[in-house]
């Protein structure tokens, strides 16, 4: 008698913030040997590896992401970054929109408040990972989540760290997520 629950597709949008510049600059800055690295995905994936990728979760026809302004949402592809450079399909979820919004509200009050944003340890990718696991049980591709440690492992990264810690990235085009009255 189990009625099939509605399945909602979940996707991950990856934006290459540097549009390729990171690819050229990072061997110089991070001291890595240039040349082909294992793994595919092209530009955005490498951007993720070079530490300049922004990710967001698309579900229920909305885009959700985390930046220094807290959890925000907008229409898919509606941030100032434009359309995504890479789309990763994460599968489907049974979680209804209402339930999901409640979950996001709790997240916004606990783990993902605006002041808890840290560009290395607790950033948009952390959020995307968390939400992806909640929705589908799967994590986002590891090369995205591992990049902070990669950058920090280099002496350059460590030198820059105090400066970068204070950088607050705010993606224009989103609306702050508020609990009451739901979200359009």
């Amino acid at each position, binding site marked *: 008698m*189990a009625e099939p*629950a509605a399945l909602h597709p*979940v996707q991950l949008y990856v934006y290459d913030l540097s549009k390729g510049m990171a690819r050229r600059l990072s061997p110089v800055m991070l001291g890595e040997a240039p040349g082909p690295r294992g793994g595919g995905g092209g530009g955005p994936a490498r951007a993720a590896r070079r530490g300049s990728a922004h990710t967001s979760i698309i579900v229920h026809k909305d885009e959700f992401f985390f930046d*220094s*302004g*807290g959890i925000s949402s907008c229409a898919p592809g509606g941030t100032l970054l434009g359309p995504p450079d890479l789309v990763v399909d994460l*599968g*489907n*979820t*049974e*979680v*209804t929109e209402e*339930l999901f919004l*409640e*979950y996001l509200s*709790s*997240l916004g*009050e*606990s*783990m993902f408040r*605006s*002041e808890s944003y840290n560009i290395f340890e607790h950033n948009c990718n952390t959020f995307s990972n968390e939400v992806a*696991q*909640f*929705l*589908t*049980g*799967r994590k986002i591709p590891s090369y995205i989540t591992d990049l902070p440690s990669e950058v920090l492992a280099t002496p350059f990264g460590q030198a820059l760290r105090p400066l970068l810690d204070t950088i607050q990235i*705010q993606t*224009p085009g989103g*609306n*702050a997520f*508020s*609990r*009451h009255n739901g979200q359009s």
Partner: protein
Amino acid sequence: MSESAESPVGAHTPPESSAQGSTAAEPRIIKVTVKTPKEKKEFAVPETSNVQQFKEEISKRFKSHADQLVLIFAGKILKDQDTLIQHGIHDGLTVHLVIKTQNRSQDHPAQQTHATGSTATASISSSNTSTSTSTNSNSSGLGGLGSLASLSSLGLNASNFSELQSQMQQQLMSNPEVMVQIMENPFVQSMLSSPDLMRQLIMANPQMQQLIQRNPEISHMLNNPDIMRQTLELARNPAMMQEMMRNQDRALSNLESIPGGYNALRRMYTDIQEPMLNAAQEQFGGNPFASLVSNVSSGGDIQPSRTENRDPLPNPWAPQSSSQSSTTASTSSESSGGSNIGNSTSASMRQSSAIPNLGPGLGGVMFNTPGIQSLLQQITENPQLMQNMLSAPYMRSMMQSLSQNPDLAAQMMLNNPLFAGNPQLQEQMRQQLHTYLQQMQSPDTLSAMSNSRAMQALLQIQQGLQTLATEAPGLIPGFNPGLGGFGSTGVPTGSAVPSSIPSENTSLASGAIEPGHQQFVQQMLQALAGANVQQLQNPEVRFQQQLEQLNAMGFLNHEANLQALIATGGDISAAIERLLGSQPS
């Protein structure tokens, strides 16, 4: 995912199976982590249990009703009649939990306090406008109460606090004498002399933030301590300001007569200056240069004349557009070239000094005694006013920067002429300050402030103390009018600790100070504050490196170095200048 859950789990089974022996099934106990957005707990349940039983376990430990729980695993919502095995939940895996809150009405006040407690930098203009609309809706109530009557006697007829601010601003700006007086005020000067505070105040304005995103040069300029410092010094010296303005006007008119320069100017204006001016002045009325643009645009097709434009630019100091003279306080020092940067600098500096003038505006009014008293009275009567005051964006940012920088706040307090002759009081202030600021920031305080009954209760306590003090002075050592002073300076920073409001009345009457009482009050304050002290960054730690450098260079006076560094925001060369300037020759 394999459904046959015979995975090598088993360290738990031997004791159980040996103990139970003949039970038909050997339910292995598996450890499953249940994770909510806020916390996670581990549960040991039999492998074969179904979701219903699992939920009952969970509801006990999460203190919710089983109906409120929604379990999610691998993207699927777990229904009561399912079993854990069916979904592939094995030992060591994590299940997500969402606890449905039944009543939404409970969330609204929580969200409201959250909104008021949220940091100003995170606040988006929409939330600001919603706050202001709520204040507008209350304005009729406020007017009905006849509140702010005292202030209207000063010629201000504001119905809510942000209007009040802007009106004060206008009045002040229209009277340059008052400006000068305010600038002389040491309270103001100390605030102005901190580039950190200025920067924070500026950044906290949401329109500024938007502008900064669109024009990153602005943020570079704001972050450059040299420019900030020079501008602040400019702001203090009105004669220099006027001269800068004149230079800039002349440079502008020269630019205009360059072929093609006119168009460049116009572009510059529309791209950068206009939005900034609008942002800075939307509260204060129109844009003084708007008429210029409209006049010109009508004749915009005309070739720019080759002769120098001799018409004077519209007078920003004109009394009817009084508030725009707040823009006079701008002009960057580096704009002598009349370049792009110069213009945007000036425009932004208008913004920057619009803000400190609000501070002195507050300070100026607050030192006016009858005004304070009735204002305080109205505050206690009408908690909404308090809340509006507290959530006014400038207030918020000021408080925030104060709390982050207790030294600055202490300095501000100390320079206050009320405390000038009284080192003892200063000491007390310093000690209390930290707790006080923490307290101000906590949303509990905010909600307590807006709860009129709570405020009245606190008032009663204070009155009781007062009576006690007069009747049985031996019992509680004296009554401390220092509290009153504390109250009156507390008001400029947002609100007094409510217990000190009525004490303000007595403080003006009496004059003696009894330190013994201080301890009692401090205890009270700490009890109120709830001891939630964050670790604030000590400027000494922040400037560690610069201090070492200064020492290496031969500046051995640690105190002076530290002060110089604080005043210049960590800029070593500027600090050195300061130190050299203050050393006796």
